[in-house]
C-alpha cells in the first residue's frame, strides 16, 4: 500500500495502480477517451493529463499510465491541466469534429468548435483502442498503426483484407468514433447475430437477456458464438463486470425432483412458411410472418413500434394479410384450424392502422372465425370502423416486382374473376403446430399424441392426459388463444391440486420477524442509503456529493454510500445502522422500487421497523441511465430526487395490514355440468361446497344433449357426474333453490336461499362464490319455427336422431346463425357450426342417401373440429354461404316448406323444398338479476364480464367471486369443464388460506368528518367502499380494496386518505421538488 494525495484528499492504494485508478477510488472523475478498463493503458489522447505537484518530478503526466508511488501529490484540475486538455481536445476535434464524446468534454471546457480545420479524410482519432483490443483480447493483431506523422493510420498488413481476422467485430464495437468498419479488414463475410426473439428483425449481442420479460431477467452468454468459449480469448465481460458475476466454468446441472404430479405445457411452434413456396417467404424480403409483424408493431421491438418494411425501411401503405398459412391445409399435413389467426390478423391490421391511418389493410381469408367472447364485435369494428378490407379468397401466387420490391398478388374477387393487385408488404398468418422437440419430450413422458402430433386427452377433460398424474394445458392439447390457455392452466393446476391436496402447505417455512419498535410520532430520524450500483449510478452521478447533500437535509441523521445497496453485506449494514443510529425512517436511493423495494422493506422489518417507514429514490432508471451525457445535471437531479424521498419519508406513518379469517366453504350457483364439475373439484381438494340449482334436477342443458361431434356419449357422462355429486360427502346439493340475498365479502359471505319444496329459507356461510348459471337456447321467432312442425332447432333434431325418429327424412336444410350475429344478438354463439355438422354427420351415418344442405355465413369449426367439416363435405353435405343482408327466405307452399337462397358460387337464387328445416339457434344470456344482486358487471351481450378478457378470464374485479361455463360466454362442454376446474383452483387460492392479508396502501377514513355522501362507494370498482346505513360513515372493506386511491381522490372533503400516498405527503414532495 502507498499513500498519495489527490486534490488534497489522502488515499491509500495498492502499489502498481495508476493515478487514474486511484482517482476513481477517491470519487474524482478524470475525463478519458482512449482508456478502457479491459485494455492496457496507452496514453494516446492525453485528455487524462494531471499535474504532479509534489512527491515526484513535477509536471503533466497521463494519469491512465502513470503508476502511483509513496508520497505523490496530484492535482487534477489546475489551470495548466485545463489549458492543456483544451488544446488536446481541439486537436482531437480537428481530426473528427463530430466526435460526440469529445464534444461533450469540450463543452465542459468551453470549447464550442475547434480552431483547427479538419484535413484528414477519415474520422479516426488514433486512440488505438481497436489495435489494443485486437491484439490483447482477441490475440489476432489484425490491426496496427501504419506510417508515421501525418500519414499515420489504422490498417491491416498491406492494406489487404486479413485472412486471420475472425470477424468478431470487436474493433468496430470499441471504436468511439465509428471510424472502424470491420468488413474493411475481414476476408470473411460478416454475418450479424440475429435476435431470435425479434424473429430476425433485429440483432443481438452474444451476451444478452433473451427477451424483456425473461424470467429470471438476467443475461446469459451464448456459448456457441462467444469468443472465449470458441478461442479462449476476449474475456472482456469478466474485466468490466464490477460485481464479478461472470463465471465461465458454470455448467448445466442435472437434478432430481420428487413430485406428485406433472403439468406439461410446452407450447407450440409456428408453421414454417418456407413450405408454402407460392408465397415466397425467405425469397421475397417484404413477405414476413405475422410474428415478425407483431415485433414491428411492438413499442419495445426492433423498430420501436415503427412499421417499416425489410427491403428498404420505408413505411408500407398497402399491407396484405394472408390467413391459414399452414392451417386448414391438407397438402401440408395440417388439416386442423389454428383457431387464432383470423383474430390476430385482424388485431395486427387494426394496430397497424392506429400506427399509421394511411395504411390500407387487406385480409385474405377462407372463413372469418371470430368465435371467441367479444370477437364478432371486434371483427365488425375492424371492417366497419377501421375500413379493413376482407377478401374471401386464398391467393394462389405472389410475385415480387423487381424495382419496387412490391408484391403482386393474384386472387379471385367477389365477381369470380381473377385480379392482380400490388401490395407493399405481405404478412403471412402462420398456424400453430407442436414442435418436434416437444413430441420427443411427450414420448419420454409416455403421452399419447393424436394424428396431428398434439397431446391426446381423456374424454371430456381437456387437461387430463391418458397417463394418470400428468396434466396438460395450452396449445399442446389443441390450438387455442390466450384466455383459453389461461383457463386450462388453472384447470391443470386444479387437477394436480386434487391429487396433492393432502400435502398442501407442508413445504412452507414461515419467516419470523422481530417485534416492531413502537412508533412514537416525535421528530423523525431518517437514514439515507445511496447506491453506486457499480458504475451504473456512480459512473454518471457524483455520489459523494449526493451523500453530502443528503446529510444536510432536514431530519437526516445518517447518509452513506454503498457500492451495491442490495448486496447481502450492505443489507446487513442497513440493519446495523437502523439500530446504531436509532433510525425511524429509511430512504434508499438506488434503482426503481419495482425491483428491490420488497427486499429493502423486508430488511428494515428485520431490524424492527415497520416496512412502510421506507421510501426509495430512483436515481438509476430515472436519472443516471437517462442522463448519461450530462453528469453535472444528473447529479443535481439525483440530489433533488433524494430530497423529495426524504420529504415524503419524514411524514410517513406505519401501516399495519389488516387480515380477515376465511370461511372455508364454497358456494356454487348453478347445477349444470359446469357447476357440478366445480363442486367435485373443490370437494376433492378438501373443501365443503354448497351447490344451488333452481330446477328440480341436476345437469342443466346437458340433459338435452346426447353425443359430441367426436362421438362421446354425453348422457352416460352426465349420469356418472350426477352420481358423484350426490354421493360426495363434501357436496351439499340444494334443488329447487333460489338465491334470495347475498351479503358480505371475500372470505366471509352470507347467502340466504329459498327452498321451494320445503317453502323455507336457510342461511349459508361461505368464503367464495362461483357463478355457473349457464345460458339459454334462443327460441327462434323466424322461419316458421313453432308454426310449422317441420321447423325445429338443432337440439330438437339431435333428440330425433338419437331416437332414430327420422323416417321420410330425405332432404334436410339447416340454417346457421339463427339468433346469432344479428342485430339483436351481435355475437357468435361459437358451437352452432359444430352442432350442425355433428347432426348432419349423424344423419348421414343413419341414412347415407339423405341430402343435407347447410346455409351458413362462416363455418367456424375451429381447432380439430375442422376435421368433421371436411368429413361432412366429403360425404356430400352441401354448404351454401349466405350474406347477412340477404338471409334465406322460407315460405310455406301448400303446407310444404320452401327455402330460397342466393348461391354466390353460381351467382343465382336456388330453391329447396326440404322435409325438415333445422335452425341453429344461438345462445343468449339472462344474468341481469344476479348481476345486480352481486354488483357484477355484464358485457354488452349480457354475459358476465371477467376482470380481464385475456389474463383473468375466470375472476371478477371483486375478489372472491368467479365465473365459469356459459354464464361467461358460449362454449363447448369440454371448454366449460376447463373453466369449471379453473374456477375451482382460483377459489382454492383463497380457501386454502387461513387469513387474507389486505393491501397496505388502502385508504383510511377520518370518521369525525365523514359526511357519508357515498361518492367513494360510487367510484370504487371493487365494491370495497360502503357507507354504513346507520352511522353514515364510509367504511373501507380492507380485503377487497386494491389500493388504486380513486376514492381518496374523489372524497370531497379529504376525509379519505390513501395510506402511503396521503395528500400531505404528496404536497411535501411537490414543495421539495419546486423548493
Amino acid at each position, binding site marked *: 500500500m502507498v499513500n498519495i494525495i489527490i486534490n488534497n484528499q489522502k488515499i491509500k492504494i495498492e502499489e502498481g495502480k495508476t493515478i487514474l485508478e486511484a482517482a476513481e477510488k477517491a470519487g474524482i472523475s478524470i475525463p478519458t477517451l482512449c482508456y478502457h478498463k479491459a485494455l492496457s493503458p496507452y496514453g494516446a489522447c492525453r485528455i487524462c493529463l494531471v499535474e504532479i505537484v509534489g512527491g515526484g518530478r513535477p509536471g503533466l503526466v497521463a494519469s491512465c499510465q502513470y503508476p502511483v508511488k509513496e508520497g505523490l501529490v496530484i492535482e487534477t484540475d489546475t489551470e495548466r491541466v485545463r489549458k492543456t486538455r483544451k488544446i488536446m481536445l481541439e486537436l482531437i476535434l480537428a481530426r473528427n469534429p463530430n466526435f460526440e464524446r469529445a464534444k461533450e468534454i469540450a463543452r465542459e471546457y468551453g470549447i464550442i468548435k475547434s480552431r483547427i480545420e479538419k484535413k484528414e479524410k477519415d474520422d479516426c482519432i488514433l486512440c488505438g483502442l481497436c489495435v489494443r483490443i485486437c491484439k490483447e483480447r482477441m490475440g489476432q493483431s489484425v490491426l496496427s498503426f501504419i506510417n508515421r506523422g501525418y500519414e499515420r493510420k489504422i490498417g491491416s498488413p498491406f492494406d489487404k483484407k486479413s485472412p486471420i481476422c475472425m470477424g468478431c467485430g470487436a474493433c468496430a464495437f470499441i471504436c468511439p468514433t465509428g471510424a472502424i468498419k470491420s468488413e474493411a479488414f475481414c476476408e470473411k463475410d460478416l454475418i450479424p447475430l440475429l435476435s431470435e426473439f425479434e424473429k430476425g428483425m433485429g440483432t443481438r449481442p452474444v451476451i444478452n437477456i433473451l427477451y424483456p420479460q425473461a424470467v429470471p431477467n438476467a443475461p446469459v452468454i451464448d456459448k456457441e458464438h462467444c469468443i472465449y468459449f470458441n478461442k479462449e480469448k476476449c474475456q472482456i465481460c469478466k474485466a468490466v463486470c464490477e460485481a464479478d458475476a461472470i463465471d465461465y466454468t458454470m455448467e448445466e446441472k442435472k437434478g432430481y425432483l420428487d413430485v406428485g404430479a406433472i403439468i406439461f405445457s410446452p407450447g407450440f411452434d409456428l408453421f414454417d412458411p418456407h413450405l408454402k413456396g407460392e408465397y415466397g417467404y425467405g425469397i421475397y424480403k417484404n413477405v414476413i410472418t405475422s410474428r415478425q409483424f407483431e415485433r414491428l408493431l411492438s413499442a419495445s421491438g426492433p423498430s420501436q413500434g415503427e412499421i417499416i418494411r425489410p427491403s428498404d425501411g420505408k413505411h408500407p401503405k398497402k399491407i396484405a394479410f394472408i390467413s391459414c398459412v399452414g392451417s386448414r391445409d391438407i397438402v401440408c399435413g395440417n388439416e386442423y384450424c389454428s383457431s387464432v389467426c383470423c383474430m390476430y390478423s385482424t388485431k395486427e391490421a387494426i394496430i397497424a392502422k392506429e400506427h399509421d391511418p394511411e395504411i390500407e389493410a387487406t385480409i385474405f381469408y377462407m372463413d372469418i372465425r371470430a368465435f371467441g367472447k367479444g370477437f364478432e364485435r371486434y371483427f365488425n369494428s375492424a371492417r366497419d370502423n377501421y375500413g379493413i378490407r376482407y377478401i374471401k379468397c386464398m391467393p394462389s401466387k405472389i410475385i415480387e416486382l423487381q424495382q419496387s420490391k412490391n408484391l403482386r398478388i393474384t386472387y379471385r374477387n367477389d365477381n369470380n374473376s381473377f385480379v392482380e393487385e400490388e401490395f407493399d408488404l405481405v404478412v403471412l398468418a402462420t398456424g400453430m403446430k407442436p414442435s418436434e422437440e416437444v413430441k420427443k419430450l411427450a414420448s419420454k413422458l409416455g403421452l399419447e399424441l393424436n394424428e396431428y402430433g398434439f397431446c391426446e386427452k381423456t374424454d371430456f377433460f381437456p387437461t387430463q392426459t391418458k397417463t394418470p398424474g400428468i396434466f396438460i394445458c395450452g396449445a399442446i392439447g389443441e390450438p387455442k388463444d390466450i384466455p383459453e390457455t389461461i383457463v386450462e392452466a388453472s384447470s391443470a393446476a386444479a387437477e394436480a391440486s386434487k391429487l396433492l391436496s393432502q400435502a398442501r402447505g407442508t413445504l412452507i417455512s414461515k419467516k419470523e420477524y422481530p417485534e416492531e419498535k413502537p412508533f412514537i410520532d416525535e421528530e423523525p430520524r431518517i437514514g439515507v442509503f445511496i447506491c453506486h450500483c457499480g458504475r451504473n449510478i456512480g459512473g454518471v452521478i457524483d455520489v459523494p456529493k449526493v451523500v453530502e447533500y443528503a446529510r444536510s437535509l432536514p431530519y437526516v441523521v445518517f447518509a452513506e454510500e454503498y457500492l451495491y445497496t442490495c448486496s447481502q453485506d450492505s443489507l446487513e449494514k442497513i440493519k446495523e445502522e437502523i439500530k446504531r443510529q436509532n433510525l425511524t425512517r429509511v430512504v434508499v436511493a438506488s434503482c426503481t422500487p419495482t425491483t428491490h423495494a420488497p427486499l429493502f422493506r423486508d430488511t428494515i422489518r428485520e431490524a424492527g421497523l415497520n416496512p412502510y417507514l421506507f421510501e426509495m429514490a430512483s436515481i438509476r432508471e430515472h436519472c443516471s441511465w*437517462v442522463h448519461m451525457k450530462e453528469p453535472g445535471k444528473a447529479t443535481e437531479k439525483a440530489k433533488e430526487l433524494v430530497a423529495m424521498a426524504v420529504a415524503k419519508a419524514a411524514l410517513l406513518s406505519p401501516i399495519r395490514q389488516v387480515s380477515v379469517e376465511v370461511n372455508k366453504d364454497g358456494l356454487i350457483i348453478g347445477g349444470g355440468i359446469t357447476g357440478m364439475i366445480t363442486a367435485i373439484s373443490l370437494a376433492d381438494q378438501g373443501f365443503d361446497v354448497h351447490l344451488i340449482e333452481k330446477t328440480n334436477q341436476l345437469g342443466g342443458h346437458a340433459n338435452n344433449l346426447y353425443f359430441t361431434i367426436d362421438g362421446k356419449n354425453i348422457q352416460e357422462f352426465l349420469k356418472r357426474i350426477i352420481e358423484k355429486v350426490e354421493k360426495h360427502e363434501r357436496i351439499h346439493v340444494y334443488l329447487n333453490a333460489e338465491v334470495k340475498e347475498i351479503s358480505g365479502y371475500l372470505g366471509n359471505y352470507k347467502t340466504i336461499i329459498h327452498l321451494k319444496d320445503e317453502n323455507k329459507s336457510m342461511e349459508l356461510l361461505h368464503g367464495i362464490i362461483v357463478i355457473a348459471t349457464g345460458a339459454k337456447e334462443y327460441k327462434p321467432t323466424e322461419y316458421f319455427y313453432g308454426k310449422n312442425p317441420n321447423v325445429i332447432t338443432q337440439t330438437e333434431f339431435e333428440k330425433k336422431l338419437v331416437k332414430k325418429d327420422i323416417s321420410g327424412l330425405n332432404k334436410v336444410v339447416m340454417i346457421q346463425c339463427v339468433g346469432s350475429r344479428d342485430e339483436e344478438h351481435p355475437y357468435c354463439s361459437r358451437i352452432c357450426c359444430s352442432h350442425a355438422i355433428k347432426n348432419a354427420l349423424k344423419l348421414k351415418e343413419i341414412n347415407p342417401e339423405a341430402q343435407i344442405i347447410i346455409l351458413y355465413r362462416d363455418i367456424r369449426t375451429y381447432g380439430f373440429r375442422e376435421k368433421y367439416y371436411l368429413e361432412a363435405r366429403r360425404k356430400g353435405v352441401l354448404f351454401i354461404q349466405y350474406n347477412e343482408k340477404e338471409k334465406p327466405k322460407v315460405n310455406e307452399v301448400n303446407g310444404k316448406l320452401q327455402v330460397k337462397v342466393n348461391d354466390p358460387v353460381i351467382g343465382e337464387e336456388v330453391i329447396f323444398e326440404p322435409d325438415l328445416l333445422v335452425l341453429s339457434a344461438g345462445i343468449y344470456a339472462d344474468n341481469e338479476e344476479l348481476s345486480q344482486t352481486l354488483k357484477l358487471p355484464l358485457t354488452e351481450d349480457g354475459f358476465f364480464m371477467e376482470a380481464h378478457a385475456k389474463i383473468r378470464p375466470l375472476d371478477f374485479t371483486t375478489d372472491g367471486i368467479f365465473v365459469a361455463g356459459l354464464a361467461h360466454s358460449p362454449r363447448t362442454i369440454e371448454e366449460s369443464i376447463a373453466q369449471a376446474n379453473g374456477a375451482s383452483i382460483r377459489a382454492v387460492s383463497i380457501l386454502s388460506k387461513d387469513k387474507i392479508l389486505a393491501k397496505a396502501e388502502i385508504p383510511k377514513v377520518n370518521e369525525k368528518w365523514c359526511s357519508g355522501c357515498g361518492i367513494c362507494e360510487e367510484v370504487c370498482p371493487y365494491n370495497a367502499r360502503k357507507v354504513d346505513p346507520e352511522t353514515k360513515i364510509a367504511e373501507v372493506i380492507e380485503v377487497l380494496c386494491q389500493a*388504486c386511491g380513486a376514492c381518496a381522490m374523489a372524497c370531497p372533503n379529504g376525509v379519505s386518505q390513501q395510506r402511503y400516498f396521503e395528500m400531505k405527503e404528496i404536497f411535501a414532495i411537490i414543495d421539495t421538488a419546486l423548493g
Partner: protein
Amino acid sequence: MEFEPKIIAFVCNWCTYAAADLAGTSRIQYPPNVRIIRLMCSGAVDPIYILKALLDGADGVLIGGCHPGDCHYQNGNYKARRRFAILRTILRDLGIPDERVRLEWISASEGKKFADTITNMVEELKKLGPSPFKTMWEI
C-alpha cells in the same frame, strides 16, 4: 444561462412509471428536467396536486396513465381523463396554455414514448418561457 423548465410528472405505478423505468433500462436519453411523483393510478391524481405544482412554480405538469382500456384498476384512467377535461377549462380560464399541462397515455412498454414526451415538453416549455406564477406574487 438558458432557461431550464421544470416539469412535475404525476404518473401511475403500472404503466407510465414502468415506462420511465424502461426508458432507463433502454438507456434512452432525455433532458433532466422532470421530477416524477409516483401514484398508484392516474385516477388518484387530485387536480389540487396539479394546481399546487403550477402555483408553486412548475413550468409544466405531466399526468401519465395507462392507455384507455388498459388501466390496472379497471377505469382509473377514464376518471383521470374526465377530471382533466374539466381542469383544462379552468386552466384555460386562468390563462395557462395547453402546452404547460399534458395528459398522456404511456404504457409500460413505451419507454421511448416517455422519453419523447419529456423531450418534446421541454422544447415546448422553453419556447413558452418560465411559468408566470414564479413571479406573479412579487410586487
